[in-house]
């Protein structure tokens, strides 16, 4: 090994990176921003105060005593308590998002009965945070009122079910994120090649309009995105059992994740998200000069969406200052809609799904317009 040649190589590498500002930003600024964001979310994030629908099935006079102690304990912790007549009414209140946790005190609590917590089950992270806060207050209060024994507790969900496939609550976020990621990268790199390869300049010297270019790309890539989304959903939701053939053991293809709603609605959600990623890729290619720089936008554009769109942390537990940002993120709307479809079984007639689809379509349109405006005649 020649020290001189090695020095020359090291010098060349450092000179190149020093002059590549986006690479420097990726190297030094992006990790600081992302770790700072995660720390901020964990430190400043607050679980919104739970709203409890209380079903008190205890016999009198115990019902009044325990009910009062429990309500006082919960309200003392800032939790809103509403008395409901039976479990069905409590479930209805949670299903309608009027309450976040239904709490059922069984008639046989004193003789070892189990307290049941019921949550919606659409967003497991959000449910978990709510449940933790409620159960802490309940267990202590119930123990005080009923005697020295700490009552047993159980957790049920309206959708999904605690015994359901554990991947099901996370599947919507995983599907949405990776479709968004790959479509963005593919479009960004392709359009960058169009810019740097001289073909965009040439194309702009024809009567083709900027709108036609963006529409052409969106539809062209949209066709591949359609196939990609269909394939991914078929892989994620389907299971094909292949029987044992000769010495080969039987095996299954597909992840077989259960979906409560229509896969077609899920397909529509992810497709709209993917079309938005096409426009985003075209738009961001304006600011890139190399394919590496397209990748370098990921920590800036995709990582915050991953952190803030309910993929990892429940949206309602994020710091208040970050909440408005979530409303700008297409991934958030897609994850929300997909959870509705996958877990709640919601369809196109549900208002929340309609809203998510409308916003996703608007975001795709917005970036398409912005992208067409950035295809300037002063091309690279």
């Amino acid at each position: 090994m020649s020290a001189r040649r090695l020095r020359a190589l090291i010098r060349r590498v450092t000179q190149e990176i020093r002059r590549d500002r986006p690479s420097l930003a990726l190297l030094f600024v992006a990790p600081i921003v992302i770790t700072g964001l995660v720390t901020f979310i964990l430190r400043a994030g607050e679980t919104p105060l739970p709203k409890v629908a209380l079903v008190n099935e205890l016999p009198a006079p115990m019902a009044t005593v325990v009910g009062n102690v429990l309500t006082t304990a919960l309200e003392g912790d800032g939790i809103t308590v509403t008395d409901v007549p039976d479990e069905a009414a409590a479930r209805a209140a949670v299903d309608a998002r009027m309450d976040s946790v239904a709490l059922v005190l069984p008639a046989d609590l004193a003789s070892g009965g189990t307290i049941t917590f019921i949550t919606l089950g659409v967003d497991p992270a959000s449910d978990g945070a709510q449940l933790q806060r409620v159960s802490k207050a309940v267990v202590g209060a119930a123990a005080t009122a009923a005697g020295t024994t700490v009552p047993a507790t159980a957790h049920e969900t309206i959708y999904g079910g605690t015994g359901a496939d554990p991947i099901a609550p996370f599947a919507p976020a995983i599907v949405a994120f990776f479709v968004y990621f790959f479509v963005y990268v593919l479009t960004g790199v392709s359009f960058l090649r169009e810019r740097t390869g001289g073909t965009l300049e040439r194309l702009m010297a024809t009567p083709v309009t900027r709108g036609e270019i963006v529409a052409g790309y969106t539809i062209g890539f949209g066709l591949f995105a359609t196939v990609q989304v269909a394939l991914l959903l078929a892989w994620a939701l389907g299971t094909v059992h292949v029987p044992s053939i000769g010495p080969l053991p039987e095996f299954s293809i597909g992840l077989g994740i259960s979906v409560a709603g229509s896969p077609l609605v899920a397909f529509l959600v992810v497709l709209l998200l993917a079309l938005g990623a096409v426009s985003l890729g075209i738009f961001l290619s304006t600011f890139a000069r190399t394919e590496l720089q397209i990748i370098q936008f990921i920590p800036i554009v995709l990582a915050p969406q991953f952190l803030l769109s309910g993929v990892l942390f429940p949206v309602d537990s994020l710091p208040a200052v970050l909440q408005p940002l979530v409303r700008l993120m297409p991934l958030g709307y897609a994850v929300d809609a997909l959870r509705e479809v996958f877990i709640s079984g919601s369809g196109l007639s549900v208002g929340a799904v309609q809203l998510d689809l409308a916003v996703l379509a608007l975001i795709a349109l917005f970036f398409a317009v912005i992208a067409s405006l950035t295809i300037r005649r002063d091309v690279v």
Partner: protein
Amino acid sequence: MMNSGAAVRADGLVKRFGPVTAVDGISLELAPGRIYGLLGPNGSGKTTLIRLLTGMTHPTQGHAEVLGVRMPDRGVLARIGYMTQGDGVYPALTAGENARFFAAAYGADTGAAVNEVLALVDLGDRAKTVAGTLSGGQRRRLSLACALVHKPTVLFLDEPTVGVDPLLRVQFWTHFRALADAGTTIIVSSHVMDEADRCDELLFVRAGKVIARGTGGTLRAGARTDDLEAAFLHYAGDAEAVA
């Protein structure tokens, strides 16, 4: 100044990029059916002038007209051919697919015209070859085909013969002459002086200005030299003295 018969016209064109003035007040009129050579060293402003004339970039001052239409104008682009300095072809598409795509983009015939133009640049037998696997010279020919496929009235060629072997260069100029004879106005930029005599008229470009204009013969005579390169230096010296 206005000449309604001019194929290309520029009036006080200026283009600045920050502190750099790439084109510095160029006015010109180019008649139809002639070959004009923009000659000058690298960085003299030839490409920027072509981009201004084709409407690819907006002037800081002044304006350009092509076929009587003030640029930029999308409507007239269907009558303009533009061969960029780079190949500007899609490497994953075949030669035929590239030519067909640009024909469609110009709103031209995508059938027989494509085969004709590929045959014109001697790529008829390469129509199904992927552009990325063509040789450098073949890609330049394909690039020229894509600029010609819609039979333009005005053709801008930015350094069309860079990296092209001498035999192919002769073929290119034969095509250009045939097109000009058929009425096409051709503006060719080059920094190769030995190509200059193939043009009907030359414009020496230096530091964003046209420092001299005329036929090869008149420019040589004006500089009292037989060598065009020496003539360029002569006019460049004059321009510097004036500046």
